[in-house]
């Protein structure tokens, strides 16, 4: 028998049962929505959290010299990191790791606690140390492969190569300039992982994009020439107790830099141990007053502009000359010097006179033409352009002083490049260091061709100037120490006072001594510049820098198997005349050079213009040249008695 409340209870219970049915449907509907309708969206989010993207440090390509000798290579090493969120027991982990990382537990603990999650414990560890940490088998501690840069030749070419920091980017030198070329793309690994960051499901393995290997560089640099330059530069700096030094060796025809040496130097494998001075590539980043080496460009542009003739004489005022309210001195007094002699004896007064004949506009134009006041665009970071004041702001004595390299500044690479233009017949080249880019399969990606920036002087002018510069190294010149056994050398000494930072005036004792030149004279293969900063033994470039030039040239020419020239003269034994030797009779070099006797018209037939010019120069004849090619006709005829006043001409026709 069922009473009324009981009946109601049954109804209400059925109602409850129905409500549970509804509840169940609701749950299933929601579940269907999530599991079927929203599936794709949720799966995508889940995948993202299940996958860890491990960046793979790209490995840097190697850097080789022109012969393929490795200068910088990358080796793979382990870097250890901690994901602090996943460390099960942070203090315990810190205690275990600290001794292996060479730190204290407290320090490490503080470091771990300070980081949000990811923290490097050690970058590029030795393998044994990494293994010890691996053996601890700590959760939240992991390893990635990172490449470490290694410079197998230590200091050799350190400044050119530069170095890389902890992260794979290059910080200096070619490493920095060609960073994006050398550096491969950063790859990544996608690994399945759980919330503790541990990789799961090894079966599936990891997928992702492995980093592409970076390209390799082949430099124009020659490891051996570089080594020679560094060794000789160091010797020059050390024996002269100087502060610093630069040596640049360049191929004049192409602008290829064969060597770029700096002193003091550093070991890029441990660059962090050095001060900034040792790390600086002075050859491109330091500008200094060039001094007398500037006379090369002065004379070249004066000849080019035909304001002087190669034989013109200038009154050298007996060593003291007043211009623009300032007195210019030559250390030695000359009454009169011709143009080759002005270079040979490095007369400032003579240079000032040539400068005044040329005028400021043309001098400024010529100097900018040679690349002064502007960067050479050598492929290195941190190049400065030196200082060449706008011509409109030249006042008073400026024209005179700039004529002999004072009141301007230039970098070593600028001077070497400008002298190369004289050496190669008048083309200003872009100096460069990277010859070609090769990918890791050996395929050439890019090859850099020599680049002519502009023609600055005619080949004739270049030849004439080169010939004059030979006189500097010849007996009686300021650069006799630069002579090279078996080769004819053209060059110029430079001695510049340094500006004293304290007084803003010229320092009484501090000098920059330099020598720049090229060799062999007829077909120059090397332009070499040696700069010695603040030598204490002697201020003169001919004493301090020229011997290093000679030593570098001698060894480099031998190494490069450049055949010695025929009819070479012996190395001058006598010491150099520094900047201002005592007055000498006009052109002491009369006599017989190459069989030409003074006073007798030589036979030029069949000679090249260059050969004719050389003979003319030796004999002091003033000659007019017509045409180009080989000499076919001359006046007066061979063997005639002639004097320097006679009109002489030679006609050339192109050889078949």
């Amino acid at each position, binding site marked *: 028998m069922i009473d009324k409340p009981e009946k*109601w*209870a049954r109804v209400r219970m059925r109602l409850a049962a129905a409500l549970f049915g509804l509840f*169940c449907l609701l749950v299933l509907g929601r*579940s269907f929505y999530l*599991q079927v309708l929203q599936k794709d969206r949720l799966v995508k989010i*889940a995948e993202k959290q299940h996958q860890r993207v491990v960046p793979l440090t790209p490995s840097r390509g190697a850097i080789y010299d022109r012969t393929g000798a490795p200068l910088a290579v990358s080796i793979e090493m382990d870097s250890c990191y901690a994901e602090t969120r996943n460390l099960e027991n942070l203090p315990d982990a810190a205690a275990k790791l600290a001794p292996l990382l060479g730190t204290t537990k407290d320090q490490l603990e503080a470091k771990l606690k300070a980081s949000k999650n990811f923290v490097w414990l050690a970058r590029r560890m030795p393998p044994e140390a990494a293994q010890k940490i691996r053996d601890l088998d700590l959760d939240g501690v992991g390893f990635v492969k990172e490449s470490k840069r290694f410079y197998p030749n230590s200091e050799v070419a350190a400044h050119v190569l530069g170095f890389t920091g902890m992260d794979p980017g290059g910080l200096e030198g070619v490493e920095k300039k060609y960073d994006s070329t050398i550096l491969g793309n950063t790859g990544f690994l996608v690994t399945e992982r*759980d*919330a503790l960051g541990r990789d799961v499901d090894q079966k599936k393995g990891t997928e992702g994009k492995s980093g592409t290997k970076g390209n390799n560089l082949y430099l124009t640099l020659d490891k051996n020439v570089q080594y020679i330059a560094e060794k000789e530069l160091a010797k020059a700096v050390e024996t002269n107790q100087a502060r610093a030094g630069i040596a640049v060796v360049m191929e004049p025809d192409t602008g290829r830099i064969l060597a770029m040496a700096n002193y003091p130097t550093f070991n890029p494998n441990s660059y962090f141990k050095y001060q900034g001075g040792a790390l600086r590539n002075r050859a491109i980043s330091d500008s200094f007053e060039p001094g007398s080496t500037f006379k090369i460009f002065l004379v070249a542009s004066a000849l080019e502009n035909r304001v002087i003739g190669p034989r013109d004489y200038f009154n050298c005022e007996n060593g003291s000359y007043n211009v623009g309210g300032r007195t210019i001195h030559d250390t030695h007094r000359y009454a009169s010097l011709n143009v080759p002699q002005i270079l040979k004896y490095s007369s400032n007064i003579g240079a000032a006179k040539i400068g005044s004949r040329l005028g400021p506009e043309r001098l400024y134009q010529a100097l900018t033409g040679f690349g002064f006041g502007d960067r050479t665009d050598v492929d290195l970071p941190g190049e400065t352009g030196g200082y060449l004041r706008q011509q409109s702001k030249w006042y008073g004595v400026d024209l005179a002083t700039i004529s002999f390299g004072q009141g301007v500044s230039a970098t070593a690479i600028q001077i070497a490049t400008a002298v190369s233009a004289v050496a190669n017949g008048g083309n200003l080249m872009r100096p460069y260091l990277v010859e070609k880019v090769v990918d890791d399969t050996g395929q050439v990606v890019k090859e850099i061709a020599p680049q002519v920036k502009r023609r600055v002087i005619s080949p004739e002018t270049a030849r004439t100037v080169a010939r004059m510069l030979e006189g500097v190294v010849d007996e009686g010149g300021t650069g006799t120490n630069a002579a090279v056994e078996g080769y004819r050398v053209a060059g110029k000494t430079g001695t510049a006072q340094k500006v004293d930072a304290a007084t803003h005036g010229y320092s009484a004792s501090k000098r920059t001594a330099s020598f720049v030149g090229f060799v062999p004279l007829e077909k120059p293969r090397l332009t070499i510049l040696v700069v010695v900063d603040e030598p204490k033994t002697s201020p003169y470039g001919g004493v301090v820098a020229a011997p290093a030039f000679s030593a570098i040239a001698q060894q480099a020419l031998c190494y490069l198997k450049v055949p010695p020239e025929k009819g070479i003269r012996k190395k001058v034994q006598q010491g150099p005349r520094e900047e201002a030797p005592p007055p000498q009779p006009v052109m002491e070099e009369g006599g017989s050079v190459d069989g030409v006797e003074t006073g007798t018209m030589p036979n030029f037939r069949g000679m090249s213009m260059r050969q004719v010019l050389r003979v003319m120069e030796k004999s002091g004849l003033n000659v007019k040249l017509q045409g180009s090619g080989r000499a076919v006709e001359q006046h007066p005829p061979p063997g005639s008695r002639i004097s320097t006043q006679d009109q002489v001409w030679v006609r050339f026709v192109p050889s078949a």
Partner: protein
Amino acid sequence: MKRLQGYDIIVLMMAVILTCFGVVMVYSASSVMAAKKFHDGFYFLKRQSIYALVGFTTMGICMRIDYHHWRRVAVPLFFTCFFLLILVFIPGIGGTAKGASRWIRLPGFNFQPSELAKVALIIYMAYSLDKRQEKLRQFMSGFFPYLLILGVFIAILLKQHDMGAALTMVSVAIIMLFAAGTRLQYILGMGAVLLPGVCFMVATAAYRMRRITAFLDPWQDPTDSGFQIIQSWLALGTGGFFGQGLGEGKQKLFYLPEAHTDFILSVCGEELGFIGVLVIAAMFLLLVQRSIRVAIAAEDNFGRFLAFGIAVLIGIEAFVNMSVVTGMVPTKGLALPFLSYGGSSLIITLTAVGVLLNVSTRMRGNPA
């Protein structure tokens, strides 16, 4: 005494199947974590298996105990539970985990008195509702005393940070009252009075508030307060229709908090897909419907209310847990009966099913 009739075989089957299935899922959900934490992947499997065996034993015993005996222990059991719930707060006896203290530490086992209290409340309510049948329609004598008792329970449970148990007990008690004949307006009125109170409690406890805001917009703080529900969604979504396969889930690998306890359904959803969830929900619904059928057909009011209360308890816990897991209701800390890891819950639920099965043997009319 009448000769025992057959038990409701479907209820029995559902309980056994769900329990066994739960043991498997607990293993799947916990093995990696257990291997890491306890260096024993079988840690939770072993324990849950023992609990299941104990539960089956107590269920078997209760199946054979005439449910009328419970009438006599109703009041003492009820007060014992009060005592045990208070015992939790005594240092040295009570155990604390994750900011909540709801356990009594026993050797090798942490006993959760609130689980026992749920069943004790049902037995007491069944006893009391049966006794007061006539007065139920009055407020002061029929409704108010229950409110008082519930109020005390809730206060203690909230003190234990056991909102889930509190709400479950309130829901079960109110549904029982409703079925027994309490006027609907009392219940609705009480709801109107309690709602502001619940809001106040939520707003004043930071952890409760966080759960609510996380529920409303879990993506706002996906790594912290919204983490659990998002991970649950990701698990379900990854499972799709057919699931990743048993043991293949990834969310349980430390992403999904409480994967082997409150969020075991997420693991089921990921590994067995929507199909798995459907089957589980269907089994629960079947269990609940059959249990209510037992209640309706019970031979007396005590048995009816007893069976109904147990049915409602299982139903409420199951479907609210599923709602939490699917993100329809804020997280509460509510286990899924039979499936979630936990000794107290499993043993007591199985025991309660045993009691219910005993009721089913004495049904009027047509037995199963």
